[in-house]
Structures are given as C-alpha cells and as structure tokens.
C-alpha cells in the first residue's frame, strides 16, 4: 500500500469507489435534477398545476418551430391550434398558420410563492395568451402535462423522503430498544412487528386509507398518506436493527457508557444506533422507491392525492382507459418518471452498499487490478 492510499479516510475511500461506478453517479445526478425541478417547479413550468383550458382537452404536444413557412430562421414559436372533430368524432388539433406565438422566456405567468414565502409570478418560458404551449401535451381538462408532471414530482418525490424519515425514526428506535433490552420487551415489540408484517402491504394501505375522514383537505390527506406509509414500513427495519443491536449491546463500549452514567436511551441513540448507520443508509436508499410506488398505487386507484393536485400516480390514473392510451399516449409520461426515479434510487442504493462495505471494497479493487 503506498502513501497516498494510506492517507485516505474511510469516507474518501467510499467516495472514490462511488465515483468509479459511472452509472450510479449518473443516476445520482438524475435524482438531483428531479429533486431540483420539483423544488423549483414554479419557475420551470409555464402554468400552475391547476391552470386549465377545456378547449384544449387532450391536445397533443405543441410543435416548436424555428423556421417560418417562408423558410426563414426566426426565434422559436408555436402556431395556435384549434380542435376539430373527425368522422369518428375524435378530436384532432390543426395548427393555424396565421396565429404565431413566439416562445418567451422569463415572463409573468400564474402567481406562486417562492419556497412558500415571497409572492412571485416569474416563469422560465411561456407563450402569450390566448396561445397555450403544451410541451408534452395536455390532459382531459386541457392542463399542461409537463407542468403537472413537474409539480407532481413535489408530492411523489417528497413522500418517499418524509415517509422514510418517519418510519426509520420509529424503526431504529423500536429495533434499538428491543435489541438493547432483550427479554420480554424484545418479545412484545417483535410480535407487534410481525403482526404488522403479516398483512399484505397494499391491502393494509387501502384499509388504513379508508379510515381517513373524507373531510380532510389535500394537505391533511398528504400527511395522512405519509403517516400511513411510514406505519406500514417501519416493522421490517425494526427487526433487522434489533438483530444488530443484540450483538452490539455485548460490546464493551456499551458497558463503558453505562459506567459513565449514561441513561439507557442515551446509550441506544448515541452509542448503539450509529453503528447501524452503514446498513441504514443503504436500506433507506433501497426502500424509498417502495414509498413512491405505494403512493403512486394509491393515487392511481383514486385513493391518494386528489385532483386538482398532481402526483405521478394520480396523473397516471387518467390513462386507465384504452381510448386514452391509444390516442393520447403522452398521458403515460408520468410512468416514465416513476420508473426513472425508482431505478435511480435502486442503482444508487446498490452502489452505496458496495462502497460503504470495506470488505466488498477490498475485493473489488483486487479484482480490477
């Protein structure tokens, strides 16, 4: 081992290993992009999620032109369009070459609040009314699918993080307590976990969702869904953490911590749980997708986030008929986002597992040299 290798800390070693996995780095950037777009959805989209124009129901994606009909270059623009019905009573949108709407950047649009604080109406791009720009087409009520997908990311992406945060707090604590005390405490807590895990997840989800009062507003429904998801998923983690704590509590530093006069809870939280961190980080990454999928599933069947609020799941619920899929395939775009997000979390989680485990790290390096 040469000098430069020696001076690297565990974190640096892990980082180096991570960087070698190009695909994982790509996925990490993609995730970053998705979260970035969700946070700044207001600026990045031309319309708010509830801005509708019924005349443009199921309008296809607007074509952005750079050439005028005379064949000259111009700034990007779109033609206005209007719906006609063909002989099958199917809507078809025909571009009206007389109406031109140039694409404008940083224009005033629907109002919003930056990070919930300052009122603002700046949008990255849009076209002048009455023209409407549909980057990825429109839904049944003529709302811009692009805007709704980006806004939908706010709910779909945050539900995974917040859900994981809550259920891991519960899981770590319950697992830690069960593992640390052992005996009867352990028995009781683990039987409760097993009872929870016994139910098929999705049915438990549906049943719990049914308990939520219908009078709840969207924010309350959102919180309810997060809580329900966390409630379902903490048990599996608690079992694993409990197993790790059973062996960790025998370590001498636990006895030493007791001899220092720390309380049991302090010992669990400050001395035992940090040792499960490398497992937890990987496990968190790998379990976020299940929250996203569960929310999508719930919203898809109409029990999750309610219209007009957008989540990837309830956007997809529009595509539940053959007519929509056949004639408006862009309705499936939210599905691509769900797929991408889930894939990214899995790839990054796998890569993290490889690079956080010092044993695996050594093996890989030997095999590649």
């Amino acid at each position, binding site marked *: 081992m040469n000098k430069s290798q020696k001076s690297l800390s565990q974190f640096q070693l892990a980082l180096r290993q991570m960087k070698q996995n190009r695909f994982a780095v790509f996925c990490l950037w993609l995730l970053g992009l998705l979260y970035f777009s969700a946070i700044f959805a207001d600026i990045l989209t031309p319309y708010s999620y509830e801005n509708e124009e019924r005349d443009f129901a199921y309008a296809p994606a607007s074509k952005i032109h750079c050439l005028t009909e005379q064949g000259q270059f111009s700034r990007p623009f779109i033609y206005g369009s209007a719906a006609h019905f063909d002989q099958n009573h199917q809507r078809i949108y025909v571009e009206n070459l007389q109406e031109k709407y140039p694409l404008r950047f940083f224009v005033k649009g629907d109002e919003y609040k930056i990070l919930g604080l300052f009122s603002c109406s700046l949008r990255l791009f849009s076209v002048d009314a009455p023209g409407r720009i549909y980057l990825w087409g429109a839904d049944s009520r003529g709302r811009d699918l692009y805007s709704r997908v980006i806004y939908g990311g706010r709910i779909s992406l945050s539900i995974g993080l917040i859900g994981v945060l809550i259920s891991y707090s519960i899981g770590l604590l319950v697992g830690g307590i069960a593992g640390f005390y052992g005996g009867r405490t352990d028995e009781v807590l683990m039987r409760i976990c097993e009872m929870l895990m016994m139910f098929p997840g999705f049915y438990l989800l549906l049943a719990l969702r049914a308990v939520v009062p219908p009078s709840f507003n969207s924010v309350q429904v959102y919180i309810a869904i997060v809580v329900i998801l966390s409630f379902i998923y903490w048990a599996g983690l608690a079992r694993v953490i409990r197993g790790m704590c059973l062996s960790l509590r025998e370590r*001498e530093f636990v006895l030493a911590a*007791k*001899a*220092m*006069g*720390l309380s049991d809870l302090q010992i669990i939280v400050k*001395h035992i749980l940090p*040792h499960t961190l490398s497992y937890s980080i990987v496990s968190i990454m790998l379990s976020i997708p299940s929250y996203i999928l569960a929310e999508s599933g719930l919203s898809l069947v109409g029990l999750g986030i309610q219209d007009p609020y957008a989540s990837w799941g309830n956007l997809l619920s529009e595509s539940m008929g053959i007519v929509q899929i056949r004639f408006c395939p862009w309705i499936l775009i939210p599905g691509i986002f769900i797929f991408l997000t889930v894939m990214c979390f899995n790839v990054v989680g796998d890569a993290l597992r490889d690079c956080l485990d010092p044993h695996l790290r050594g093996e890989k390096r030997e095999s590649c040299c």
Partner: protein
Amino acid sequence: MLLNLENLCVRVFSEQGEKSIVHGVSFSVDEQQILGLVGGSGSGKSTTGLAILRLLIPPLVVTEGKIIFQNQDLFALGQDDMRRLRGGAIAMVFQEPLYAFNPVFTIGDQIDEVLVCHTSLSRSQRKKRCLELLDLTEIPDPVRISRSYPHQLSGGLRQRAMMAQALAGNPRLLIADEPTSNLDVTIQAKIMNLFVKLKKELALSIILITHDLGLVQHFSDSVVVMKEGAIVEQGKTNEVIQNPRHPYTRELMRAL
C-alpha cells in the same frame, strides 16, 4: 472511610442451576488510598468491581451484602441516583480502551459526553475542560488527541485518554480494571505513576484490579488477595508482602 463492602455475594443463575461467583467479600477503601485487588483469572475481582457500580448484567446477580459509599447504601439508591454516581463520584477505567471507547466518535466527543452528563458547563467551557483533562493525564498535544479516533492512538495514549474521560465527572473513587495489562512494562510504570500523581493531586481513592502483585507491591497502600471468589488475605501492602500468611499469596509472590 470512603467505601465499605460487607459480605458481598454474587451468584450466577442459569438453566443448569446456580453457582456462587463471589462469596462474602468484605473490604474497605479509605480516602486517598490505592487498594490493590489481586487475584488470578476468574477469581471474581472484576465482578466485584462491576458490582460496586451495580453494573452486573443478569445472569450475574448480587444476592447478599452491602456496599456503603460516602455513607449511602448503593443498593438502596434509585436508578437515577445510581446513574448520577456512575461516571460522577465513582468512575471506571477499563482494561482495553480500544474496546471501551466507541470507535465511531472522537476522544473529545466521548469526554464531552461525560461532561454533559455530570456537569453544567457550557459548550465552550466543556471544550476547555476537555483539553485540561487531557493535559492532566499528561497527554502531549491535547488538541490533536481530542480530535483523534480511538484507533488512531497508541495503547498508552488511549489509556491516558480513558483516564481523562474517567476524571471528567470529578470522581472520588476510581475503579481501574486491569488498566495496564495490555501495555508494555515501561508504559505500565508511567501509567501507574500517573495514577499515584492523580491520587495526590485530586485526593482520589483508587481500586486497582490486577493480577500483577508486582504493581500492587510498588504502588498500592493496601492489598486484597482474592482466590476463587473469596478473600484469602488482606492488609497493608508492606505487611502482606513481607509476611504473606496464606499459601496462595506466597505462590503469587514466587511468581514475581
């Protein structure tokens, strides 16, 4: 008298039945005294040490006896009072600080933890106190050491850091469980001299648990010799060393 043990009995309960580990141990520690608790492996000396802090984990159970520390009966204390005592008035130094320190935190963090627990100092005061403690145990470059992880230090430094941590709660009694067994002879002597210095400067009493009668001979004021869970001989160090009455003590003497 700082600490007084009366007829301490510890038994282990298991499915195979119960067995006595420590039977009827009585001794006392005076203020500013180093007491050497000597015995072979399995003689119950470490168990006795842990029993004083009420740190025995089932199946080990104290079945009989009384421990009086500063005129209070330790077995009559509530959990919270007992916790305040641990790391506070009675602190423990372990045999292998590599295992007794939590590997994922720095030395400074772990000393700070005791200060949070047992003092009401502010953050900056704690930081200063931490460096003072490291300095007190004659650690060179306390700032660097406080930022190091346990595995980055040598055995001697780790033991000093462990002592600094034990001193953080201003203890009256230090229980040192084989504090020098994993160190080489020269460092052993330095650590023991440090114990003696701390005893004088901080008016500490120390229970030195060891299997090495040589250490006890040089550094302790009185000695308790244990064998198979019972005391075979106790008294002033000079008297015991010069005139060992029990055959086991003589055997230990010959091993020097």
